[in-house]
């Protein structure tokens, strides 16, 4: 009796083990290129960051049957490779799955932000508002984007109404900067350099260049005057023209130096805004569970 039970148990044990092993290997491994195997391999590549190869796998699966979540991964792959126009194009194809459709719209808005085309970014946000309803976070992105290009800002009170708390103070500061940027005046720099050679350069924060311009102009003016006083007219004119060359070049250069100074100020401001936005993922939640 006991022997029979033991025999039966052993038998069942072996049976179930074998069924288990059979199941383990029955991932239809007879064909590595069927849809489920390609999807599995594609997911593996995607999670390894091997995006181009992953895209190839996903695309070949999609050619036989459509699947929004794979399409979402294709688009995300392009985004992560920094090919934003392609990611936008691919995100657009996601329609059937309501949840993914919403995520895809948000992600293509993120792509437009990365491209830096803020006009289209705002258009896209407006379209999103119409089709999917208002979103407070997106309207923040909308208003931040106004700081990044040359578009007109709304009234300060209207503008600030989208923000509150500490963020409101910060954005108020940005708003004031944008309305009245602390630029310097190129004409003023040119006039300053016309009066005292090099002064305009110092005004433009280029102290070394300013001193150099002063020394060069001064030196050649001195030589010219000295030559004329000693009746060496020819070399007098030579030094005078060199002096004039440096004098006029410095007036011109002071104006361009201020322009470059202003460009730097603007660059830093834009960077500050972008840094703030990127720290907050552009107010768009990062899609989860792409790698599982």
């Amino acid at each position: 009796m006991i022997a029979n039970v033991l025999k039966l148990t052993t038998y069942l044990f072996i049976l179930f083990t074998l069924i288990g092993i059979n199941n383990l290997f029955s991932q239809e491994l007879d064909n590595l290129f069927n849809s489920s195997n390609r999807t599995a391999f594609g997911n593996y590549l995607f999670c390894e960051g091997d995006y181009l190869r992953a895209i190839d796998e996903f695309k070949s699966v999609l050619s036989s049957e459509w699947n929004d979540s794979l399409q979402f991964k294709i688009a995300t792959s392009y985004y992560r490779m920094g090919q934003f126009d392609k990611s936008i194009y691919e995100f657009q194809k996601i329609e059937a799955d309501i949840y993914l459709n919403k995520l895809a719209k948000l992600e293509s808005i993120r792509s437009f932000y990365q491209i830096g085309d803020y006009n289209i970014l705002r258009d896209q946000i407006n379209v999103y508002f119409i089709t999917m309803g208002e979103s407070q976070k997106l309207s923040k992105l909308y208003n931040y984007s106004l700081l990044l290009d040359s578009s007109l800002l709304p009234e300060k009170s209207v503008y600030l109404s989208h923000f509150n708390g500490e963020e409101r103070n910060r954005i108020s500061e940005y708003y004031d900067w944008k309305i009245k940027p602390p630029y310097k005046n190129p004409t003023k720099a040119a006039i300053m350099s016309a009066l005292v050679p090099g002064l305009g350069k110092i005004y433009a924060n280029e102290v070394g260049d300013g001193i150099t311009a002063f020394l060069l102009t001064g030196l050649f003016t001195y030589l010219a005057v000295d030559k004329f006083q000693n009746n060496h007219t020819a070399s007098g004119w030579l030094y005078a023209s060199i002096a004039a060359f440096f004098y006029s070049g410095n007036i011109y250069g002071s104006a361009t130096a201020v322009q470059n100074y202003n460009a730097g100020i603007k660059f830093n401001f834009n960077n500050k805004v972008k840094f703030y936005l990127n720290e907050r993922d552009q107010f768009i939640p990062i899609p989860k569970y792409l790698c599982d």
Partner: protein
Amino acid sequence: MKIVLFIIIIFTNLTIAQTDWIRWGKAEVDYSLEIEGVEDNYNSETSSSPLTLLKDGYSFLISDLDGNNCPFYPTCSSFFVEAVSRTNFVKGTLMFADRFTRDSNLFKSHEHYPTHVSGKLYDPTENYQLHDSTIIFYSIEKLVN
């Protein structure tokens, strides 16, 4: 500092492509060493405008012989040719005079110019044409191509 960090993060994440993000093929094996070459490239073989002749003459007689003085890219003579051909002779000369002054600045601050891939300071003519729209501001950390 934060901004610098941010730029580094952005660029390492997005622009430094992984090896396989573009298809590639067999590469030619080349053991040879790169020769920088003392002389500038002469242009008069392809174009014979008086300006390029002047520049090539200057290169041949002067700039090839007076040592490696120009810390900028493009070099002062190329800057002059480019400035004149993009604007006009008077404006180009003014731009060149300004460049010459900045070149003579002994306490040149490297913090004011981004670095070109050649290792020189990047200082393009576009930034000195008196048009705000042509100015491209590069952050100091960026290596310009």
